[in-house]
């Protein structure tokens, strides 16, 4: 199952990168969302899957799933949500100010 899930994570990465390389601002935001989803699955898979009970301690249970990747992913989900919202508003404002959402037209000054 781990191998299959690694492949799934890899496909998510690929889809995320593909979106990231698009010209449209909205697609780039979508790309980052997929990319972080891929990363979450990736981290979870590295800690082995379906071993023991959910990491909530109970009497009589000695095997639990690895809690560390879960804690990391939980942090990551929330952070990537913050990132996504910021990116969205940023691209919304950028598109509004410049009247375009095409990245190829947003290139900065020549003096840079």
């Amino acid at each position, binding site marked *: 199952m781990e191998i299959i899930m690694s492949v799934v994570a890899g*496909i998510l*990465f690929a*889809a995320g*990168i593909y979106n*990231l390389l698009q010209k449209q601002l909205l697609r780039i935001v979508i790309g980052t969302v997929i990319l972080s989803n891929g990363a979450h699955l990736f981290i979870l898979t590295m800690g082995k899957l379906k071993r023991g009970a*959910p990491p909530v301690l109970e009497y009589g249970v000695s095997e639990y799933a690895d809690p560390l990747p879960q804690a990391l992913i939980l942090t990551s989900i929330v952070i990537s949500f913050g990132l996504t919202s910021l990116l969205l508003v940023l691209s*919304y404002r950028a598109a509004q100010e410049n009247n375009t959402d095409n990245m190829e037209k947003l290139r900065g000054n020549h003096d840079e």
Partner: protein
Amino acid sequence: MLFAVLLPLVLTLLIPFLSKFKDKVHTGIFVFFIPLGIFIFFVRFIGEGFSPELESYPWIPSLGISLDFYLDGLSLLFVLLISGIGALVTFYSIFYLHKSEKLAHFYVYLLLFMTAMLGVVLSDNVYLLYTFWELTSISSFLLIGYWNHREGSRYGAMKSMLITVFGGLSMLGAFMLLHVITGVTSVQQMIGSVDLILSSDYLPLIMTLLLLGAFTKSAQFPFHIWLPDAMEAPTPVSAYLHSATMVKAGIFLVARFSPIFHGYEWFFIVVSGIGIITLCWASYMAVRQTDLKGILAFSTVSQLGMIMAMLGFGTEAAVFAAVFHILNHATFKGSLFMIAGIIDHESGTRDIRKLGGLMTLMPISATLALFAALSMAGVPLPFLNGFYSKELFFENSLHIGDTTLWIASFLKQAIPYLAVFGSIFTFVYSMYFLFGTFTGKQKLEQLPKKPHEAPIGMLIAPAILVFGVIFIGLFPNLFNETFLAHAAKAISGEDTHEHIVYWHGLKPAFYMSLIVVAFGTLLYLFRKKWWSIYRAIPGSLSFNRVYNGILKGLDVYTAKLTKSYMNGSLRRYTALIVSTIIIVTGLVMAGTNGFTFKTDDLAPVTIPEILVGIMVIAGAVGTILAKNNVAAIIILGVSGYGQALLFVFYRAPDLALTQLVIETITVALLLLCFHHLPQLSRRTEGAGFRLTNAVIAVGFGTLMTLIGISAHSSKWFTAISDYFLETSHDLGGGDNVVNVILVDMRGLDTLFEITVLGIAAFSIYSLIKLRSKEGE
């Protein structure tokens, strides 16, 4: 000694406050006492019973770097030059620099230089030496560029910096090799393990790198080009850094390390060869200059070449002569620079074509210049120190040690002739400087100012130096056993008992001096006849053109290279970054056998999981295929909810809950944003564009899959998760381990996470509220 080295640096902290009163008291007056104090502190070491001293303070013991200060005869000579000339130059600058100049800047740079230069000559640790060495380059850069509104100053500063720092880095390479070979960082201990170094395969490389450092600093051919441009600095700086002290750091380095290379024949070939070429070329070029300071700059280069050549001879007597000439050169060249500064200050120009006949207007300066210039020319008079060291140079050029290599033998034959050739031109430019300025027809109408004698304060410093010229000339042996012999011993390692006498008898060296004077006089008198030779040699050839070409080439090609990939397209940057990750990570993983694939110990495959997996994939890929933006967003939601289901399968209830909430909000936000931007364009992309994207995306996906599989196929470390499971209840007081990790064990992490979210929230709020002025 540590205190003496750092004292100037400490005063720099006070300079900004002291310079507040510069209208009442010239800042230089405060500074003057620092080098004077250091001079008095060190002058007590002079004496026949002097023995070297070592002081050590720990600094970075783990790297073998400590503040080791070693005072031997050679250091003492340099320390006294640095502090003595430093005091005179500071005194001179009080009258030279007007109070309206940026005095605080000037004196901060100057004091910084003093610390750096004292550090160079006193350091025993090679890394400490290197640190101070680069600090001299930096302070020299700042001082040359002092009048930074001038184009020439900036050019000269940059040039000196590039060339000397290049050499400094080479030198660092040599130091590292020496450190690796001998295992010690102290110069004296390196000299102790000289056999180890001489038998090393890296010996030629070490010598080349070390000499690159020395030659660039001491402006040896062909690196001499920075020194004439450094003359843009204020004259006190030229007299101090670019004639008496900093440019002699290269000489110091060669002298310091010559006990190691002594007996290595290539050392003689390179050091003496380059030195003698520098002497000839620079003295030949000096005659062509029209700027007074330009003449002196080339003259300094040639004199440094002469000292370098003598150090290369390596015989005990030659080393003694070199040391003697270091002292003499500082006296006569320092005073000549100050006189050039006086002429510039009082007449408004340094162009020798406009000057002439100043003898009657500036009698004191003329008298001082007369003695200093005759000493520089090596005229055989018993009260000029320059003559003594020049004659010792001739004598030693005839008595070079035994040679085995043919090139060394050839050089040994050629050196006496080249020495005479260079000295003839030395004589010519000395006369040219002296008579061109002070005799001949007055051309007062061409001068910006009406010249008159300088104020007495300005004349004191050069007068003291000229007094030194004559005093050393009259009583050379006063300095011999007490001072110079110790310095020579530090270089050659043998006790030196030279006796300096005026009259050696009718020996070859005396004839050589006579030839120099005779031919020099002829060449000077008939200089208009042979002047045109400069059109043939060097003609339009010059090392400056090489330097400028290299700089320009670097500018042009780096700009081209950067523009070739930095075209402003963020998409291009992303593609480049991701491709680099794929290539570099892939190669490293493949090269280190990082990819592993094991099928044992896997969780069982179940149908529901596979179905949800397919749903996640379908959602992700669907966002690419969807033509419509709303559709893409909805499909993205499908993928996210699928992932939440996967979290349920994989025993992560907290993740599943969070993912559900976040996914819902994200989709809602995306739709909201989309709603406010109705004019979004349709997608129009070519097949090539999509193919590039696909290749990079698939490459990255494959790489990550392989890494993921390798990660759970290999077990290098035991997991630390057990610790959390065991201690969660007792230490964290909670049964939900994930929660305990987040709020307790890694609580600080979570705190920062909240901070990040807060910052994001503020940014979002201000982005929405922010309106450009034209907009609304």
